[in-house]
């Protein structure tokens, strides 16, 4: 059996480290990556603990296929209780750390307690050691990595690192690797900081055995070709993820000026083609870079061009990668800035501090709207002119938040709900969040399916848990039926119309299982049915798993395991106080989705709101698909069907 992998339990308080093999029956139930992390978290985390206290549990895990040659098996998943939402924290990054951790001998690391002083974990060919991090504490994301590489004389060490934002306990700090790859949501970097854990450094030369090498080479080529031949991936391989922002903004699906509008007009300077020109000018004709074993190569390289703004902040010529569409969201449409200078500078700052571009952009945009309405004044902002479109204010606020300087900087570092409580003055009603995490930059008022997705997402407002993005492609009904009826049949009606509420609950449920599946495999979401309708999923994974690892799983078994892992995430949330209609902990949208009509974009988007009653109907349907009661709590039959009746079972 090729699939012999290990988990390590690391107690940072006592220094004790325990290593355990992952039995195949546990593997079959929870697959790997995010699913296995959910199992470990549910078993090790006690309910109700302070997310920034020593009792929180941090789990770093990599996909079942990590370091095999299946396409883009580069993903690392990080879990814990979120200091942002006080519910499940879960976040995912690409890069090269996952493969290196596998080659170093481990698939999951569970951190308990808190180190006495700044420390880092060294993982090398099966050995694990807690080391002093004095030389890198306080250093930026990249400086930390370059320093340890230099100290050890090895350029191939890979890291999962928290930046200064994590050390300063900004509640939405990232775990990062390389230049910019970010596990960027729900504040897992702050959990690292709270544990005095600066980074995990991994280096390995252990063999990852491929079960059927000759066939695996053949099948992997076929699997990769299915991915790289898709138009979305060819576009992404040239323009990066900004093309997504461009398409969404074109029809009016990008929240602008916080939530005042749904389109950033005349934004040619930050359109993907212009960003590509900057990359070409500063980094050459071939300016795309890739994660481990990925042929899509969606990440652009750039150096910050000369501009008065870059000059003022001392950033001219700095090398970085991206920006991703989420940075266009956080630093362009949400804050009303149409210039590439703000985008490229802000993107660099958040990469260096190690902070979530979406959350920090949303917090600044929200503060700007409060400033627009006079709820915040220049006295509150310590002189920063927080008007929409002021790029200098965006950069200044990033510094203040990450360094926790000034009253407003400290307030915004606390995340939406705590900041609203600190500011008061009715500020909460302007927040665009679910479960205490700000929404990404997309505006879902015209797309009920996508709105349901953010409302029921386990980690708060987010597209990467269950977004039926292909709902916007007006796919023929029979094509939709084929995609959404595999591997389990769906007998109900599906609608090709993104404005409809019909069948959307099933699409969201299906996508939830698809995204859990891909996160368990440790494959990038751009390689499954997310942006491209015709990309691999359950049937293809069954094959790629078998050829690479020898594990035999049917597509339906993968589907059921994904359902099980999603339910575990839900169980964590239930333990932490989930209530269906609770504005802070429930499956609800901000009132503005129901009350404020969209004002810009394509003709049919104008005036769009989410119908409150129809939304509730869709949500009830979704609960039914999941096997939950009308309150969103799983029924005893569902718990039994998914084999979760003995959880926590403490098998690892």
């Amino acid at each position, binding site marked *: 059996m090729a699939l012999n992998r290990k988990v390590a339990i690391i107690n940072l308080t006592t220094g004790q480290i325990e290593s355990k093999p992952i039995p195949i029956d546990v593997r079959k139930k929870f697959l790997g990556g995010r699913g296995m992390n959910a199992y470990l978290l549910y078993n090790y985390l006690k309910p109700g603990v302070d997310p920034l206290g020593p009792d929180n549990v941090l789990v770093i895990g990599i996909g079942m296929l990590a*370091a*095999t*040659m299946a396409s883009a098996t580069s993903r690392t998943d990080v879990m814990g209780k979120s200091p942002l939402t006080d519910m499940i924290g879960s976040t995912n990054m690409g890069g*090269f750390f996952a493969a290196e951790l596998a*080659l170093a001998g481990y698939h999951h690391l569970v951190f308990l307690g808190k180190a006495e002083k700044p420390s880092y974990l060294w993982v090398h060919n099966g050995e694990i050691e807690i080391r002093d991090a004095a030389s890198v504490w306080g250093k930026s994301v*990249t400086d930390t990595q*370059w320093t340890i590489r230099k100290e050890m004389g090895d*350029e*191939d060490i890979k890291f999962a690192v928290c930046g200064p934002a994590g050390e300063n306990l900004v509640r939405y700090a990232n775990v990062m690797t*390389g*230049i910019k790859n970010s596990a960027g949501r729900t504040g897992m970097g702050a959990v690292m900081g709270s544990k005095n854990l600066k980074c995990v450094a991994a280096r390995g*030369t*252990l*063999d*990852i*055995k*491929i079960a059927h*090498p000759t066939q*695996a*080479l053949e099948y*992997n*080529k076929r699997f*990769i070709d299915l991915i*790289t031949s898709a138009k979305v991936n060819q576009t992404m391989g040239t323009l990066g993820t900004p093309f997504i922002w461009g398409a969404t903004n074109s029809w009016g699906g990008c929240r602008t000026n916080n939530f005042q509008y749904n389109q950033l007009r005349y934004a040619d300077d930050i359109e993907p083609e212009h960003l590509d020109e900057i990359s070409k000018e500063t*980094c*050459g*004709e*071939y300016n*795309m*870079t*890739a*994660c*481990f*074993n*990925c*042929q899509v*190569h969606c990440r652009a*390289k750039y150096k910050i061009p000369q501009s008065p703004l870059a000059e003022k902040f001392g950033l001219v010529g700095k*090398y970085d*990668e991206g920006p991703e569409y989420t940075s266009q969201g956080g630093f362009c449409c949400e804050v009303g800035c149409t210039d590439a200078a703000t985008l490229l500078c802000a993107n660099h700052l958040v990469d260096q501090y190690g902070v979530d571009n979406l959350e920090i952009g949303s917090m600044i945009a929200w503060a700007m709207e409060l400033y627009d309405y006079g709820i915040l004044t220049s006295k509150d902002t310590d002189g920063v002119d927080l008007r929409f479109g002021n790029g200098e204010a965006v950069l200044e606020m990033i510094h203040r938040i990450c360094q926790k300087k000034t009253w407003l900087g400290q307030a915004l570092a606390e995340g939406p709900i705590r900041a609203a409580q600190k500011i008061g003055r009715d500020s909460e009603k302007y927040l665009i969040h679910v479960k205490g995490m700000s929404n990404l930059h997309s505006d879902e008022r015209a797309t009920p399916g996508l709105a349901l997705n953010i409302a029921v997402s386990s980690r708060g407002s987010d597209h990467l848990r269950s977004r039926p993005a292909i709902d916007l492609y007006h796919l023929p009904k029979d094509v939709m039926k084929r995609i959404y009826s595999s591997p389990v049949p769906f007998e109900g009606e599906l609608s090709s119309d993104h404005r409809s509420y019909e069948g959307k609950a099933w699409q969201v449920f299906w996508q939830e299982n698809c995204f859990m599946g891909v996160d368990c495999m440790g494959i990038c979401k751009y390689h499954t049915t997310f942006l491209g309708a015709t990309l691999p999923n359950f049937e293809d994974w069954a094959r790629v798993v078998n050829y690479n690892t020898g594990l035999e799983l049917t597509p339906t078994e993968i589907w059921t395991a994904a359902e099980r892992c999603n339910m575990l995430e839900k169980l964590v949330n239930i333990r932490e106080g989930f209530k269906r209609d609770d504005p802070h902990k429930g499956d609800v949208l901000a009132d503005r989705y129901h009350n404020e009509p969209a004002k810009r974009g394509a003709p049919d988007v104008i005036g769009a709101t989410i119908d409150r009653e129809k939304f509730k109907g869709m949500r009830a349907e979704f609960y039914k698909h999941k096997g939950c009661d009308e309150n969103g709590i799983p029924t005893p039959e569902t718990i039994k069907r998914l084999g979760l009746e003995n959880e926590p079972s403490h098998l690892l």
Partner: protein
Amino acid sequence: MEAMAKTLVVNQERCTGCRLCESVCAVKHDGVVNPMRARIKIEKWEHEGLYVPMICQHCQDAPCMNVCPVKAISRDEALARVMVDYNTCIGCRSCVAVCPFGAMNFNTIDKKVIKCDLCDGEPQCVRFCDIKAVDYVDAAKVSISKKRDAALRMTSAQKKATELEAEM
């Protein structure tokens, strides 16, 4: 005239740094993923986004071949490659020390030297590299395409200079 054998060519500016070539190389030769076993290695300067695939050049007058004390290394002219005969090799690693490209590797698990063998004419690194940062082309054509690329660069640079001059 005898047909010229093909050769591996690196277009380093194209490399995205994904390292799939390393993975498939190790799987092809040893049935495992392990970059330490790969005959190709991407050297990275991550802080500036520079990635360079390093491979065996299959030199005509190969230093590894010349230095080998037991004559275990020889040229196979049919595929224009330099090969190690493991029945003769004593594992002294003189070849590793002398290779100017660092392309002769030492596999610390099996305790033997390893190098590119062009996968017997079907190099997997090339097959999997979509962007063709490594390519397998007729040896005679390598400089022809390089010449054309260079000529194009020079022409467009000249064009730009003329435009700038005109603006002044």
